[in-house]
C-alpha cells in the first residue's frame, strides 16, 4: 500500500494551489535539503513531464525552493521563497526537460555549496505524497510500504554493522536493506526499510556514528 494513512488522503494542510505540484514539490525539496544536511548555496532543478509543462502555474518552482529552505507544506513563507532564498544568497535555476521519465511529476534536484554537491530525483505521486527514486546516481528501490532510512556513508568496514546494531538497540526490525557504492573506499549508500517508525533520538544516534555522512528518513 503506497498510501498508508488516512492523512495521506485527508491532508496535508498546505498552501495552494496543487498537492502534487506544490505540496509534493515542497516535500521533495525538503527531503533534498534534509539529505544535504544544511542550507545549500546553489540549486539546479530539472523538471520533467507535467512538472516541466506546468511548473509556473502551480508554483512548483516556488515550492521546491521553499522545501530547500526547510519550509513545511503549510508554511506561509513558501509564497515568498524566491525572495527568502535571495536574502540567504542561494542561487537557483530551473531547467524544464523534454525527455521521457517513468512518472509524469518528476524533479531532479542538484544542490551544493563550497564543500560538496548532491543530486536527488523525486516523484510526486498524488495528494502531496512523494517518493525518492535516485540519490547521487544510486537508484533507490523503495517499496513505499514501510518507513525507510537512507544513510550516506564512507565506504569503510564496520559502518553497516554499526548502523544495524543501533537499530537493534532500539528494537527496530529491518525488513529490507540494500547497500551500494560507486567506487571502493568512496561514498556509499544504505537504504534500510524498517517495520517501526524511527524517532528523532535514533536518527541523532545514527548521525553520531563514525564515517556516516548523512542520515534521513523517508516514506514514513
Amino acid at each position: 500500500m503506497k498510501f498508508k494513512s488516512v492523512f495521506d488522503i485527508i491532508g496535508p494542510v498546505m498552501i495552494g494551489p496543487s498537492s502534487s505540484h506544490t505540496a509534493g514539490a515542497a516535500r521533495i525539496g525538503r527531503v533534498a535539503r534534509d539529505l544535504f544536511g544544511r542550507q545549500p548555496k546553489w540549486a539546479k532543478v530539472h523538471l520533467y513531464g507535467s512538472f516541466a509543462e506546468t511548473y509556473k502555474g502551480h508554483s512548483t518552482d516556488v515550492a521546491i525552493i521553499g522545501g530547500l529552505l526547510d519550509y513545511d507544506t503549510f508554511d506561509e513563507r513558501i509564497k515568498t521563497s524566491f525572495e527568502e532564498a535571495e536574502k540567504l544568497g542561494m542561487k537557483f535555476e530551473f531547467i524544464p526537460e523534454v525527455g521521457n521519465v517513468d512518472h509524469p511529476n518528476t524533479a531532479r534536484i542538484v544542490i551544493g555549496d563550497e564543500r560538496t554537491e548532491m543530486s536527488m530525483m523525486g516523484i510526486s505521486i498524488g495528494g502531496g505524497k512523494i517518493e525518492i527514486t535516485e540519490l547521487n546516481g544510486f537508484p533507490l528501490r523503495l517499496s513505499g510500504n514501510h518507513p525507510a532510512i537512507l544513510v550516506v556513508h564512507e565506504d569503510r568496514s564496520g559502518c553497516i554493522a554499526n548502523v544495524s546494531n543501533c537499530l537493534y538497540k532500539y528494537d527496530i526490525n529491518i525488513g529490507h536493506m540494500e547497500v551500494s557504492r560507486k567506487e571502493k573506499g568512496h561514498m556509499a549508500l544504505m537504504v534500510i526499510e524498517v517495520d517501526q517508525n524511527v524517532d528523532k533520538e535514533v536518527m541523532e544516534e545514527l548521525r553520531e556514528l563514525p564515517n556516516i555522512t548523512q542520515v534521513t528518513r523517508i516514506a514514513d
Partner: protein
Amino acid sequence: MEYLFRNVRELVERAEQENKLISEVMIEQEMLVTERSREEIMKQMDRNLTVMEEAVEKGLKGVHSVSGLTGGDAVLLQEYMAKGNSLSGDLLLDAVSKAVATNEVNAAMGTICATPTAGSAGVVPGTLFAVKNKLNPTREQMIRFLFTSGAFGFVVANNASISGAAGGCQAEVGSAAAMAAAAIVEMAGGTPQQSSEAFAITMKNMLGLVCDPVAGLVEVPCVKRNAMGAANSVVAADMALAGVKSRIPCDEVIGAMFEIGQSMPSALRETAKGGLAATPTGKWLEAKIFGGAVVGSGR
C-alpha cells in the same frame, strides 16, 4: 503490515459484520497502522477540519487569485441564494458555493487541507458544511465525515490513483466527489452498503473527466469542477439513501477509473496541452498571464 481493508468490499463487509460505521473502521485501521492513539488521531483530524472551516470562511468573504482567473464566485452564489429564488435548492447551492470558496482560496495560494488533493479540496468540505446545516451533526460526527471520506479515498489511492497527472480529473474531483457522497450517506444515517452505492454512482458520472487546466493553473476549470463535483455527490447520496443501487460494484468502478486514466493521452493529464487549455481562449489567457506571443484575439 496488516490492513483492515484493501478495497471497498472488505471495508463494507467489516463495517456491517462488526456493526460499525465506516469512519470507525478507518479510525481503527489508522490506530493499527500508525501505532498512534485514538485521541491523537481524532485531534489531528479535528485540526484539519478547522483548516477547512477557515478556508470556507475566507472564501465566502471573497478572494482573488494572482492571475485574476478565479475568485468571487462563492460570494455571487451566496448573494443569489439570499434572494430566495434559487432553482436547485439551498442545500445544493450552499455545497456548491462552499466548494467554490475553498478552491478559490486554494487558487489564491491560501491555506487549505488537501482532500484528497488541493485541486479537488473543495468538494468534501463544501458538502460537509452544507449538509451540516440540515443534519446538525456534533463536532465528532463532522470529524467522522472526514474519516469516512478518507476510507474510500484510501482505497482509490491504493488501487487506482488520486493524481490528475496520472489519471486525469476523474482521479481528483471524481474521487473527491465520490468520497463526499459516501460520507454524506453515513452522516445522514445510511448503511455502509449505501455509502458504497453513493460512491459508485458518483464515480460513474465522473469517469473520463480529463485534467486540462488553462495555463497550467489550478483555476480554470478546476474551481467549477469542484462545484459540480459537490452537486453530484449530494444528489448521488440522496439516490443511494432512496435505495438506488449501482449495477457495477464499487471496486469495479474504481478499476474502470484506473483503466481509463491509463489510456488517457498525456495532453489530457495535467500538462496544459489539450482540452480547455488548448482552446483559443485558453491559449490566449496563458499568453496573457505568462507573457510571450499572444496568438489570436481570444475574447
